[in-house]
């Protein structure tokens, strides 16, 4: 089948697939918890039919837990929805605080599996740029994925955004193991293609990765 995907498109598909798989896995986990709680309530009902006493407090605790899981699932679905809508417009004005919040929501499970803690700091005032929402989200994920690999013994990645001239910077810091990785490891071909698409730059500093985004990529 003679076809060739461009690197930005292929990287984007991989990212979308990875996030969808992760979130659907999380939803399965939530459904499993709800199923067991519901099963326990059913067990209580069976015992009551056989003359046993139901403890109202236990029923109440279980229903509260089910509500908590529903809220958790709602958060996951909200993240899926935001990611899906990030392809609606190729370029738009973006609040980077929201980009960061979505990034953390999408990545929490990957961080947890690696034993890494994500510590985002949201800006007190909105930091905005005009950019491609999906490509930026993809680049931010690839940077975070690498940052988690080089988090070192501290096992923490700090994330922040700040204005920089007409544009803004996205920072991944506290990377204790960054110096141990060969310089050519990052950015790779995929990151370079996304940086070029966004007209952005990446800089490796001591213990941190800094992505600088233009205020308007067309300038």
């Amino acid at each position, binding site marked *: 089948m003679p076809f060739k995907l461009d690197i930005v498109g292929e990287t984007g598909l991989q990212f979308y697939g990875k996030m969808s798989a992760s979130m659907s896995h999380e939803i*399965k986990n939530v459904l*499993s918890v709800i*199923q067991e*709680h519901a099963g326990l309530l059913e*067990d209580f009902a069976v015992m009551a039919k056989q003359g046993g006493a139901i403890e109202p407090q236990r029923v109440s605790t*279980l229903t509260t*837990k089910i509500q908590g899981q529903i809220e958790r699932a709602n958060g996951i679905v909200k993240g899926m929805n935001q990611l899906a809508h990030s392809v609606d417009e190729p370029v738009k004005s973006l609040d980077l605080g929201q980009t960061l919040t979505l990034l953390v929501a999408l990545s929490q499970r990957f961080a947890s*599996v690696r034993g890494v803690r994500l510590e985002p700091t949201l800006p007190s005032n909105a930091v905005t740029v005009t950019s491609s929402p999906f490509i930026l989200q993809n680049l931010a994920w690839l940077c975070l994925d690498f940052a988690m690999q080089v988090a070192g013994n501290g096992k923490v990645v700090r994330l922040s955004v700040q204005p920089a001239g007409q544009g803004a910077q996205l920072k991944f810091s506290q990377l204790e193991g960054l110096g141990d990785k060969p310089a050519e490891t990052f950015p790779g071909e995929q990151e370079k293609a996304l940086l070029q698409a966004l007209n952005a730059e990446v800089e490796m500093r001591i213990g941190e990765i800094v992505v600088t985004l233009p205020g308007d990529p067309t300038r």
Partner: protein
Amino acid sequence: MTERVLLVDDEQEFLDSLAERMQSRGMNVSKAATPAEAIMKTEKESFDAVVLDLKMAGMDGLEVLRIIKEKRPEIQVILLTGHATVEAGVEAMKLGALDFVEKPANLAELTKKIKEAQAKKMILVDKATEAKIKEIIQAKAW
């Protein structure tokens, strides 16, 4: 005969509710919320079956399976997974898993597999005992 089961999952609420339901059905259930705790418990206690989540924080479920089977080959491991892929299934079977159950798990199905695990473990233990007795008889010139 009461089945001795170790449930391993990093979803604490799932662990608590499933354990309570299994206990009310006559099983003897222990819980582990981390891979390290699961490995430690299988080293110290005897179980007929370990019901093990495939994706956990800190260590991959397949790695936990490998360690358990290396140290206690008679323990039967049933893997719990969000998405049962063929690749993961083949890998798990190669490492000695008894079976797979996809989440959300059906308790009746899980109970059936636990009973199968117990029966298989008893056969393995009986064979090991028989081999040991033969070894003793051959070593002693009675």
